[in-house]
């Protein structure tokens, strides 16, 4: 009898519905919001759903999306990183100065810039954990101070152009040809399927319940169809952009790390109940510091991607509303500001929502005042769908 109550029964379709009703909706409502956005803009402007525009969208979301991934790392702990924008700009400027002004090898320049970002994150983390300062204040000081350093480093010159045909600019102007793109997708899906089969074997061997085949097939198959669609559409224009592949790889890698490593488990634990984690013998200080380092490094990498896209850095790098959009992407994707809940896919979904709205609005011919108002309304609408659906399902 015990064995029976302890066992998770196989998922029946009925149970799947029940899970849905329990509020375990995962990404579906946000995806619904995306569909609405696509429908609205697709109707208003014939170009919105064109391969060309979807390619633009893919390019536009990578940099802020990467920054958002870093934000998720600290949000998981219930902390905040307001400095992400400034750090992204600073890191891009450091890279550019080394690469363009000092004529370093671009890879070395990128590496050093990322290390610098890591050191910044370390500093934030230590101030937060050792001096017990609220992360809001530490990173607010970072927001102001690193921006100051950026201006100082740019100094007299202001804008620095990155050579259009140089390594860094090419990052955002490289396109996977059709066959490599399909190869990548096939490898991904095959790898996942293999992992699923092996996992099922092992679970069965351990006498643990396994989810029904149809569910696994549905999930992997669905993803395969989605990815195939993406590749088909993007190949109709210039091809799958390397930038998207990089961002996607980061999302997948971070998701694996968070779900399958001890570090990831401890991140969720510290975010869920820091005191319980501490009592369990987890070095919560180290986890926190690591999260801030990760956040800064990802912000820095996002900044480099942005510089690559623009082929330049300037005083405005990392400024404006980049930070807010990165945080918003995380939140829209379902990351809690209170810690312990969220996944890297949130950054992907959230940034898709945000950039789709921005992208779509720019296709329309409206005054900036109207554009702001409509952007706000669509944003609110997309998230309201999510919230209402989630709520309705948990009543």
């Amino acid at each position, binding site marked *: 009898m*015990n064995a029976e109550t302890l*066992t998770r029964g196989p998922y029946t379709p009925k149970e799947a519905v029940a899970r849905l009703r329990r509020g375990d909706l995962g990404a579906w409502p946000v995806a619904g919001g995306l569909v609405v956005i696509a429908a609205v803009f697709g109707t208003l402007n014939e170009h919105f759903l064109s391969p060309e525009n979807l390619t633009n969208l893919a390019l536009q979301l990578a940099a802020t999306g990467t920054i958002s991934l870093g934000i998720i790392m600290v949000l998981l702990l219930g902390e905040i990183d307001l400095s992400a924008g400034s750090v992204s700009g600073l890191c891009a400027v450091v890279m550019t100065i080394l690469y363009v002004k000092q004529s370093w090898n671009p890879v070395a320049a990128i590496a050093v810039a990322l290390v610098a970002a890591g050191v910044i994150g370390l500093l934030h983390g230590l101030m937060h954990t050792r001096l017990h300062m609220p992360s809001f204040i530490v990173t607010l000081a970072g927001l102001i101070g690193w921006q100051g350093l950026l201006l100082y480093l740019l100094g007299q010159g202001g804008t620095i152009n990155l050579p259009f045909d140089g390594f860094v600019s090419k990052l955002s102007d490289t396109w996977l040809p059709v066959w490599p793109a399909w190869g990548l997708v096939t490898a991904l899906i095959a790898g996942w399927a293999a992992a699923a089969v092996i996992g099922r074997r*092992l679970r069965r061997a351990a*006498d*643990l319940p396994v989810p029904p085949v149809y569910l696994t097939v549905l999930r992997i198959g669905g993803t395969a169809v989605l990815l195939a669609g993406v590749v088909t559409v993007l190949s109709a224009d210039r091809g799958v952009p390397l930038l998207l592949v990089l961002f996607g790889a980061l999302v997948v890698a971070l998701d694996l790390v968070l779900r399958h490593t001890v570090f990831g488990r401890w991140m969720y634990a510290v*975010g869920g*109940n820091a005191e319980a984690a*501490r*009592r369990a013998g987890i070095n919560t200080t180290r986890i926190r510091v690591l999260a801030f380092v990760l956040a800064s490094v990802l912000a820095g990498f996002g900044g480099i991607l942005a510089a690559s896209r623009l082929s330049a850095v300037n005083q405005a790098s990392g400024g404006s509303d980049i930070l807010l959009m990165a945080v918003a992407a995380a939140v829209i994707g379902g990351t809690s500001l209170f810690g312990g809940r969220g996944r890297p896919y949130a950054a992907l979904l959230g940034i898709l929502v945000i950039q789709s709205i921005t992208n779509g609005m720019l296709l329309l011919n409206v005054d900036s005042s109207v554009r702001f108002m409509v952007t706000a309304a669509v944003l609110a609408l997309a998230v309201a769908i999510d919230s209402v659906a989630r709520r309705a399902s948990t009543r």
Partner: protein
Amino acid sequence: MFSATGITKAYGAVQALDGVRLDLRAGEVVALVGDNGAGKSTLVKVLAGVITPDAGTITVEGRPVRIATPQDAQALGVSTVYQDLALCENLDVVANLYLGTERRRWSVLGHIAMERAAHDLLTSLDVRIRDIRVPVAMLSGGQRQSVAIARALIGEPRLVILDEPTAALGVEQTAQVLGLIDRLRDRGLAVLVISHNLADVRAMSDRVVVLRLGRNAGEFRTAETSQEAIVAAITGATADER
């Protein structure tokens, strides 16, 4: 084996512990009893490295040790079930059971091994949870307490501390835990149990230590003492130190 002396801890004006001493021996079950607010949980937290006392020394097998963090306590083989359970509500049962002691290879989690072992451990404790992969937030009070107790049995502890382990447990589960405590003693572990249930205390413990308003207020061999004497020590009606 474990011996704490002169443990003192104040929270502002409240003197939660005031020069308390406590000896724990291998193969012995000690019951720590006392009124609400007597300082029992505070003493547990000191032994577990959760809080640092204002004064006092702890020795293990005669050698003084420093227990400044929960890691220190774990390294000494102290395993604790806290009164407030200290679970991560956002994590599932398996994750909570193995928190801090995850089975892993190259830091990659051994999901299947942990799930299998969790399953067996909970079954052996007669715990009934319909799906051990749901977040702990979804469990009933007693189910959570069972998870917290099971947690303490993972690893190779030398001293197991249980702060009101059966408060929320059902009849059968309580019996299981009492049986478990017996087995721990038989395996030669030191066990410290806090309980308000004097019947249980008498049934399971070898020795009873009484705290009152943060001070030692009596110590008894269970077998040789009447329940009335213990109650008297708890309430302060008498304060005979043995």
